[in-house]
């Protein structure tokens, strides 16, 4: 019963946060110093047609009514039309979304697969050289701008060394041969059995995913280290060591088991953070995802597109956090 009410609380708080996000985008749309009615009519319209248009757009209604209508239209998946691409924003986002997910997922995988062992190792060798090197790597990750690191990586690994493919998702020559099934280009290439396209897509993904993954590596390894240090100070670890268990077993089996749960939250947060971080990374790598869609729309003040993209990333952000919270509840035996 108690568990159920706790789950309900988590859900309610996610819904409130979602409303907060909608309110934020709604208010941002309202502060644009462009009068939507004037934008349609031009500034030589008569006063009566101006009033008429304002009425049609619902601008004469109280703000809370306008907000209600806004929420309703977003819930229907209607984000308006993009001034730049002339398509409905929802349709644009559907096209760009898979690329962002592909990049963020690849990056989180890299960050988690490297970050967790690194944090574990650093905790086990606390105060030694390895620990300091890991910490320095982590601190650097917290300090360097992601778009800059991306550019430098492109110069070095693509232009100079030629180890990876350059900007974009796949070689342009191959682009039209990959059938559009899921929108995830690697999956589509694999499904069609096109080995060359798959390799090209992979080679394009590696560098941006590594650059972005480095940031989640910094975060994940740092958190793993501090969780592990907390566990290693517990009495059951002393008992396990006193029993004569090998250090590897103490670390991986005893301590790590208790660290897994909080790590789920950390990795989820890292993933949510990367969805956001992808905005700047995609620009550098010409990665055709939501981030690039937003940044392209920014300068032409295509607010429908900007706010639609913001909403989608914000919703993903909230959803990932919610899933992590719920997963934690399911996996933690104390919560059942």
């Amino acid at each position, binding site marked *: 019963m108690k568990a159920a009410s706790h789950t309900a609380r988590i859900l309610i708080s996610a819904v409130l946060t979602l409303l907060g996000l909608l309110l934020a985008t709604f208010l941002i749309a309202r502060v*644009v110093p462009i009068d939507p009615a004037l934008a349609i009519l031009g500034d030589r319209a008569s006063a009566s047609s101006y009033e008429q248009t304002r009425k049609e757009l619902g601008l004469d209604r109280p703000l809370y009514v306008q907000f209600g209508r806004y929420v309703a239209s977003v819930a229907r998946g209607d984000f308006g039309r993009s001034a730049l691409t002339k398509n409905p924003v929802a349709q644009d986002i559907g096209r760009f979304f898979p690329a962002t997910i592909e990049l963020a997922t690849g990056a989180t995988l890299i960050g988690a697969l490297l970050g967790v062992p690194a944090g574990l190792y650093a905790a086990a060798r606390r105060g030694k050289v390895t620990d300091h090197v890991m910490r320095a790597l982590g*601190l650097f990750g917290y300090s360097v701008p992601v778009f800059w690191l991306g*550019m430098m990586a492109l110069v070095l690994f693509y232009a100079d060394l030629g180890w990876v493919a350059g900007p974009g998702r796949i070689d342009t020559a191959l682009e039209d041969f990959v059938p559009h099934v899921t929108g995830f280009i690697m999956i589509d290439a694999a499904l069609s059995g096109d080995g060359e396209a798959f390799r090209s897509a992979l080679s394009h993904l590696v560098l941006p995913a590594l650059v972005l993954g480095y940031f989640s590596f910094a975060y994940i390894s740092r958190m793993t280290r501090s969780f592990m240090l907390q566990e290693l100070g517990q009495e059951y670890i002393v008992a396990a060591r006193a029993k004569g268990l090998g250090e590897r077993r103490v670390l991986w089996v005893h301590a790590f088991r208790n660290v897994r749960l909080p790590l789920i939250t950390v990795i989820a947060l890292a993933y949510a953070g990367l969805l956001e971080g992808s905005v*700047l990374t995609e620009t550098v790598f010409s990665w055709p995802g939501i981030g690039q869609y937003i940044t392209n729309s920014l300068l032409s003040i295509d607010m429908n597109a900007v706010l639609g993209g913001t909403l989608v990333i*914000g919703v993903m952000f909230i959803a990932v956090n919610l899933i992590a919270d719920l997963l934690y509840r399911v996996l933690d035996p104390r919560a059942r």
Partner: protein
Amino acid sequence: MVAPSRRFPPLATLGAAIVVASALIAFAAPLLAPYAPYAQDLAHRLEPPGGAHWLGTDELGRDILSRLIYGARVTLGIVALVSVVTAPVGLLVGCVAGYFGGWVEAVLMRVTDIFLALPRLILALAFVAALGPGIENAVLAIAIVSWPPYARVARAESLTLRHAEFIDAARLAGASGGRIVLRHIMPLCLPSVIVRMSLDMAGVILIAAGLGFLGLGAQPPTPEWGAMIATGRQYMLDHWWVAAMPGIAIAVLSLAFNLLGDGLRDWLDPKQR
């Protein structure tokens, strides 16, 4: 918070030294910069580092070192403005919530949590896009998304103070709620907020650089580091230094703030170690 007697961590000292040095460099920019930040010299454009231009020249032949030195003014100015706006707001929200409790606390902290759960960078982007590009709007946007952590910290501190005897004494002496928050609680929450701030400054620098990079922050020809990286992008394959140098400046300054914040936190709070 008791004044600790332990030695101040050396890395934090290094961080503090870099921050102070950058502030001095920014302050004395006209004296230190070898060239004027806007002086174009088209005969010597895109020259590699070395010789007359230690860090090379950009696409208009402007001296990159001089532009970095003047750029410190822009970046530190943004950092200072954001702190001046956000810290008092966060402090006030947190202290009022912590001291008064009840529904005031519930509402204020709910709002804080909502702000904390939203993606910062992307909301800041949307704000600036709506308000129009420029430093003032960038500062405003960063401030709007940056105050919640301070409110959290200040609330946690003021919760422990709420039932302290000296607060009861002040209340019995007839002090109003407003006076107690402003004069007795807020000053005591300040140290934790300052620690949190130095940890946050690196993030502010990175967001500001990101906005500059996307063309939403300082406008050309202002020597802002993020914007400098953006122009360097066109030339990066053959003239890497144009984009590389400002990035190094950003990394060094935000690393310094990170070292300082980490050290301060460890120093003041032994539990974190």
